[in-house]
């Protein structure tokens, strides 16, 4: 009988179970339990404050959300979809553009790549506060620029038509470095002979990109689109800091946070919104994964 790396037969039985049990307990406590509790709370009118009753109410929160009573859920879902679509498309495009530009050897390129990735490591609160100050319509530097170009004033984050695009732009600024890195990894995986063959065939830069680079970047695109969409679906902190969800920027995630933990906290209603958010994530995530994987296979 070969010697077991875990030692004697008695401990051999114990070690694998212990190895699974430690992360397993962590998952049960911090993964499964909160998820199951959220489902449970969604059937209550629980305030979320310690010592207050659960007030079980069946499907009352769901009825509220899906009947005429709630005028907040549908606009929040609509805003979420616009936000997710806008950020995912633009961030992926910006990430690709940056990757094409900066996928070169040399220290200066390494520096630029690090610089572009840097916003990712800042806290959302810091980024939000900095941009709120930049976009302050009275004292912020953006106001001088706007006035110089358009000879008028703008409320920026307090403008019903500008607030959502601006929040999206801040999000893209913060995370496009991440998309860039994934695309750079994808670009470095494309075999050089493919480019050499294309060059021999007389393909120009655009044709090389369209018929060689872009199709071969399909796995990187799948990862980028999927991760950006999933990350954006749950976004609420940046919006909270920048606009507080006002001026047409209240996404489902922010509405959930506000309901569950806002001034008049109602964890029961907020949990129901979290379940809706989960459903939306499942549908969008599943759809994207299905579509993108299919595209990869076709390419």
């Amino acid at each position, binding site marked *: 009988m070969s010697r077991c790396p875990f030692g004697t037969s008695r401990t051999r039985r114990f070690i694998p179970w212990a190895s699974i049990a430690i992360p397993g307990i962590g998952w049960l406590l911090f993964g499964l339990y909160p998820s199951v509790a959220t489902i449970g709370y969604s059937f209550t009118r629980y*305030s*979320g404050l310690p010592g207050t009753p659960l007030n079980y109410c069946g499907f009352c929160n769901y009825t*509220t959300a899906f009947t005429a009573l709630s005028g907040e859920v549908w606009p929040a879902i609509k805003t979420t979809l616009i936000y997710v679509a806008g950020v995912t498309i633009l961030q992926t495009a910006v990430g690709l553009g940056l990757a094409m530009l900066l996928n070169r050897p040399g220290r200066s390129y390494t520096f630029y790549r690090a610089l572009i990735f840097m916003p990712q490591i800042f806290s959302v609160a810091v980024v939000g506060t900095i941009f709120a100050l930049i976009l302050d319509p*009275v004292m912020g530097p953006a106001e001088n620029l706007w006035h110089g170009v358009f000879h008028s004033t703008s*409320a920026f*984050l307090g403008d*019903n038509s500008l607030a959502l695009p601006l929040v999206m732009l801040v999000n893209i600024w913060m995370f496009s470095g991440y998309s860039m890195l994934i695309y750079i990894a994808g670009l470095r995986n494309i075999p050089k002979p493919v480019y050499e063959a294309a060059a021999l065939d007389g393909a120009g830069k655009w044709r090389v990109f369209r018929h060689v680079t872009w199709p071969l970047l399909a796995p990187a695109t799948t990862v980028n689109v999927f991760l950006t969409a999933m990350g954006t679906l749950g976004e609420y902190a940046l919006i909270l800091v920048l606009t507080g969800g006002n*001026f047409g920027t209240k996404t489902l995630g922010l509405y959930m946070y506000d309901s569950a*933990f806002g001034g008049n*906290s109602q964890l029961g209603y907020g949990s129901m919104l979290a379940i809706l958010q989960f459903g939306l994530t499942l549908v969008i995530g599943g759809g994207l994964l299905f579509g993108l994987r299919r595209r990869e296979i076709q390419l």
Partner: protein
Amino acid sequence: MSIRRPVAIAVVTVVAATTAAACSSSKSSGSGSSGPKETLTVAEWTNPGAVDFTKALNAQFEKAHPGVTVNFQNTSTANGAWGQLSTSLLQSKSVDVLAQFAPTQKAFPPSFTNIKPGGPAALIEAGQLVDLKDQPFMKNYDLTAQQAAVGYNGGVYGVMAAEYAGAGSIWYKKDLIAKYNMTVPTTFSEFLADCAQLKAAGKTPIFLAGKVGMQGGIWQGIENQTLMAGKQPTDSVQVSSDRANAFWQGTQNWNAQTYKDIGAKYQQVMQYIEPAASGVDQQTAPGIWAVKTDDYPFLLDGSWDSATILKANPKLNAGLFVLPGTDNAADNRVPVKPDLTWVVPTSAPHKDLAMQWLAMFSDPANYQSWLKATGSMSTEPAVSNTGTSWMDWLNQHTSDSFVQLTTPWIPQGASNDAAGPDYYKLSPIGSDSLDTILNRSASAYTKSIGK
């Protein structure tokens, strides 16, 4: 090598660490050689004046109670930070004295509404806060005001320590106003005429933080004075309750003529605000206003921002008055908003010390300092907030002030429109007309109560 040795070492390490932790824990809360040591935890949200005062009071408390350390926690109300901190402290059962916003009677809707309270009202209803009614220090306070702010079923579940001129309160630059031979306006027409004159002189009359909806203060100021016209100040709780009932029964709604008139006045005032005000944040507005001494004669903001304003520009000769919402000067009284309320959770580990801390806070000499530091109006009848130059107008008008009216009961999950006009969408900040906004609110309210 057998596995037993590392396992044994790990077990010994865990036991040793646990023992060490237990020893250090008992050191902080148990008895030591120099007598019992206890830690009283006090938490409040960040208001610069209130935080400075509380730190000083804590030092005084520690001096008077050898062996007691006060652990003071505070954070901003912005972005939900305060809500998170206070809930965490309650969950961990580690806080002794906790600041809460006064729930007022609106937070306890009648059972027929089937609305469950949230926030501090939920804690009170669930018996999670200590009834302070019979505490000796409560004799310092006006019991009626305390009951209106934090009373429930005959008990008083906190000490409402601060109340502010909220709805329609306006800071003004005394020197700038005097330059145009103006005095504090007493009627709505007078206020509009002043704004028109200032605008003609090239000034932007009103500054406000529209990003967080401060423009709502204009509406609420006019609304409070209009609905309270001809009534006694003590009637305000009843007026709020009657209105809530009328809305619930369907005999009144947001598209009534009263609200159309209020809205028309609101829009008249809004002509004079800073054009980009909707992008101005509350965190920056008081400071910007204070340093720009040659413009923005008026700032729509509560009296709670006195410390911020005076810190930004200590030389500013500022005052505060309340927007006159009607053309009858006698009806233009000050609506007062109950605000910071100290509560003691039933889970507090040091209730006796908490009561002693509150007793020290309530001492008239300390309370006087609290008022000066926070700019609050007094809730102790024997103490008044005098000696502060910016409060001169307010002090002359507190005798007939009334508790700010509360909005109708709104079921959870109802659209924001049901709670009243959406100031972000109403022109001039938004693009919707007054009729559109009021009809939308009326419809949303009717739907929210299932009628």
